[in-house]
């Protein structure tokens, strides 16, 4: 995917303006969203991933205007976008393995055997092999986080949007995650967009701050992205 472009994008939720008149171009590469606390970073990431529709303005994915897309229209593009939640997002009535298998099996991405193999590989890499048959409520917060991050990477996305991906991860899992990210960056991943205060991650990936790579003429209410 070449670029993601936001034109005069505003977002209001329950009558509260989150940001307005955002103009931004995200070229291929690694981007880090920075702004003050509770300024709408997570909502901005959800907007980019298609989880929220803008109140006004337009969003272009590689030249295609997605701002008025319904669920069915989004489907094809959504399969190219991986999203990692800052908290929650795992199905509580499914085991960790089933959580990871669900998108692969639902979309018939690979054969059932290939899906199983890929999921087991990720579970091992993210040190979840021993707890794969447990449900999210039965494992530690660190393991839940690892499962969320692993699931975001599973479909080999072109765009990866991660909300605080390393918070709570064990160092060894974090290292596996970084290696996997680097492998994907050399593969088909065109955009890595994340927000994190993790110094190790920021130094290792040297992301462009969001207004360095694009032109941010609008502002996130509360604090201008810098």
């Amino acid at each position: 995917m070449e670029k993601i472009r936001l034109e005069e994008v505003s977002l209001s939720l329950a009558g509260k303006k989150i940001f307005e008149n955002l103009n931004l171009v995200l070229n291929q590469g690694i981007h880090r969203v920075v702004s003050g606390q509770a300024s709408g970073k997570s909502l901005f990431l959800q907007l980019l991933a298609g989880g929220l529709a803008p109140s006004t303005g337009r969003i272009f994915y590689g030249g295609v205007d997605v701002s008025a897309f319904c669920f069915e229209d989004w489907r094809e593009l959504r399969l190219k976008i991986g999203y990692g939640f800052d908290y929650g997002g795992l199905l509580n009535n499914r085991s960790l393995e089933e959580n990871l298998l669900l998108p692969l099996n639902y979309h018939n991405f690979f054969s059932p055997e290939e899906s199983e193999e890929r999921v087991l590989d990720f579970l091992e890499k993210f040190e979840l092999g021993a707890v794969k048959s447990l449900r999210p409520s039965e494992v530690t917060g660190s393991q839940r986080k690892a499962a969320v991050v692993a699931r975001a990477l599973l479909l080999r996305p072109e765009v990866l949007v991660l909300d605080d991906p390393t918070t709570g991860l064990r160092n060894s899992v974090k290292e596996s995650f970084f290696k996997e990210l680097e492998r994907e960056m050399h593969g088909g991943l065109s955009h890595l967009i994340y927000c994190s205060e993790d110094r190790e991650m920021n130094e290792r990936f040297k992301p462009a701050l969001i207004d360095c790579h694009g032109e941010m003429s609008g502002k996130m209410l509360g604090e201008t992205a810098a």
Partner: protein
Amino acid sequence: MVLVGWLGRRALAPFQFVVEAFFLAYQAGRAFFVNEAQGFRAVLQVIAQQIYFTGFQALPLITVLSLATGSLVIMQSTSQLSLLGGQRMMGSLLVALVFRELAPLMTALVVVARSGTAVASELGNMKVHREIEALELMGIHPLSYVVFPRLFGGVVSLMCLGIYFALIAFLGGFLVAQCFHPMSFTYFVDLISASLMPKDVFYFFLKILSAGVWVFSICCYYGLSVGRGSHEVPQVTTKAVVQSLLAVTGFQVILSLFFYVGLLMDAGAL
């Protein structure tokens, strides 16, 4: 003017909620049948789980209730049967009371208590824990993957439970009848089948089907109405149960009225 507006909104609120709940059921069905890239196997797995929880796991409770209902109806009416025509009336009594009225109503009440609460609270918790959001972001239609299987599995389970309730209640009636009016099982079956009209079967299925649609549309609707706060889950669960009970009982009374008015019209009394 403000008061009129307020009264109008209050009066229309229940209808608006009903329309929204049914629209949700329609959208879920549409999402399941129209969505091209459907993970049918994944959805079928959820339907099977729903049938297991709503149908299979309710069997012990339904067995006890239906045996008790059939037995009690015969026990209570035994003293009056001789006045009404003896054991020949047993079939009519069981069909009129158990098959026509109690089986659909009691099965629906059991399903509201067991599965309605479970569905509303499960969906509410899914909203709170961002599971619905996660499904959307994975390209999985929540209405197709979450709502439709619960609705379809729930209705199928309710149908099966209703039939099971009626059969076990008849059996309970037969067992108790052996103490007061001994008869062969084939004779008992003849009594029941002679009293059963096609209209009874039609209304029985109509009541069960409508109850299933009411209960699961309402419970899914309320479950998905939760915002981000877990404190909302018990509140919407209570609302879902109350509204389901009102809808199911109210609608069954209306259907029974139609049935009896139809009988009177057939008899030329109206």
